[in-house]
């Protein structure tokens, strides 16, 4: 994954998060698409790229949401770094492994984010557990859908094309 692709995917994730999610989910599902992108980028490109992706995307998210600029940047940097280390040290190749990493990253990110805000005295969440769980599940689901779109669909398209080519060749030989 090249750097400009990461930037493009992050921009698309931010736009989808702000414009489309609100319409599709009626504003009720707390999905963090940017976190999903950070986690997958860190898994594929390692801790340094994960750290930078987390920093840049988090700061952009802070700027757009009106919170204190730097909080999301800090939390997503940490997540990008940790997931990058996990991806480098362990074999995280199947979708289930990646899903487990995404779930853990989502839970840790929410706790870290709420923790920093609690330290700053800017946010007092009343139902932390439900927020953490709902968000982890939402992020995992959106991660599965994203993974399906990014990996499974192109592979399926390639298979169909390959079969079609074989059929055309067979017909050409038979005919």
């Amino acid at each position, binding site marked *: 994954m090249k750097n400009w692709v990461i930037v493009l995917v992050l*921009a698309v994730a*931010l*736009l989808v*998060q*702000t*414009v*489309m*999610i*609100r*319409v599709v989910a*009626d*504003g*009720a599902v*707390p*999905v*963090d698409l*940017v976190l999903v992108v950070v986690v997958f980028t860190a898994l594929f490109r390692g*801790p*340094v790229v994960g*750290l930078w992706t987390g*920093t840049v995307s988090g700061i*952009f*998210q*802070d*700027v*757009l*949401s*009106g*919170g*204190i*600029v*730097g*909080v*999301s*940047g*800090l939390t997503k*940097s*940490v997540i990008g*770094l940790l997931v990058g280390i996990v991806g480098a040290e362990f074999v995280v190749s199947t979708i289930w492994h990646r899903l487990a990493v995404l779930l853990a990253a989502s839970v840790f990110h929410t706790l870290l*984010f*709420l923790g*920093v*805000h609690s330290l*700053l005295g*800017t*946010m*007092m*969440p*009343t*139902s932390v557990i*439900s*927020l953490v769980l709902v*968000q982890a599940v*939402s992020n995992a689901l959106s991660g599965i859908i994203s993974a399906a779109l990014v990996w499974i669909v192109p592979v399926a398209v390639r298979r169909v094309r390959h079969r079609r080519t074989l059929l055309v060749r067979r017909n050409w030989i038979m005919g």
Partner: protein
Amino acid sequence: MAQRQRIVYLVLAVVLGHVILISAQVNAGPRTSVLESFTFGLFAEMQRVLTSARDTVTGVWSRYVQLRDLQTENEILVGAVADLEYQLQEERALARRSVGLQKLLEFREGVELSTVSARVIAGDATPYFRTLTVDRGTVDGVYADAAVLAPKGVVGRVVGMPGRRASRVQLLIDRNAAAGARFERTRTTGVVMGGDDENLLRMEYVSNFEDVYVGDRIVTSGTDGIYPSGFNIGIVNHVQPGSGLYLDIRLDPMLEFSTLEEVLVVVSGGAIVTMNREGE
């Protein structure tokens, strides 16, 4: 080894940078940096384009669907218009009588609010805050802390310096939002604050000795200097004595915040107005 050391230095630099960035804002209070205004403006334009494209697609689709039942709908509408014309005449007669009564009771006329209508072009970039982006900015007269209203009640306020053609609105149900409020029935004042997902709004600083019932209507008091007085906030859905001096009061908001598409932004320079109690 050198690679690992470089990563450690990098992490330390990034974390330190963030801590300095956060500390600067916490000490200096809310300000808008060049980076912030540039990023917000840039993304607002992209969001505006994407929202327009989305609206066009949904508009074409809904028009196609609507065409299929147009004949039946037309007949129903003709009947409805006839009924409404009759109702309108009745309402006009009632309004004329109300105006007379109002003059008779020497009610003060509220100062006319100057507003611009704005379209919601984006939601929040994170799942933690409840903000919206609207397509009106300083060019249209929007200023920081301007009240944002809807026909059914208060939406929130503009947070941060608005962009040229877009502004960020903090909804009243955001955890960090608050508004001066009072009970319409008893005129007792308090502060309405944003809650969590289950209880969207709560009212604080209302004494345990106050007379509060489920179903009481809460309106803005105007004491915060942001929201004009007398606009709907919500209805009490739960009340019980609190552990301290104050009642534990939760509210149902008057608005469905998740489906907001059009809002009104006050642009009159923050004039605080008083509405008639019956005039909402």
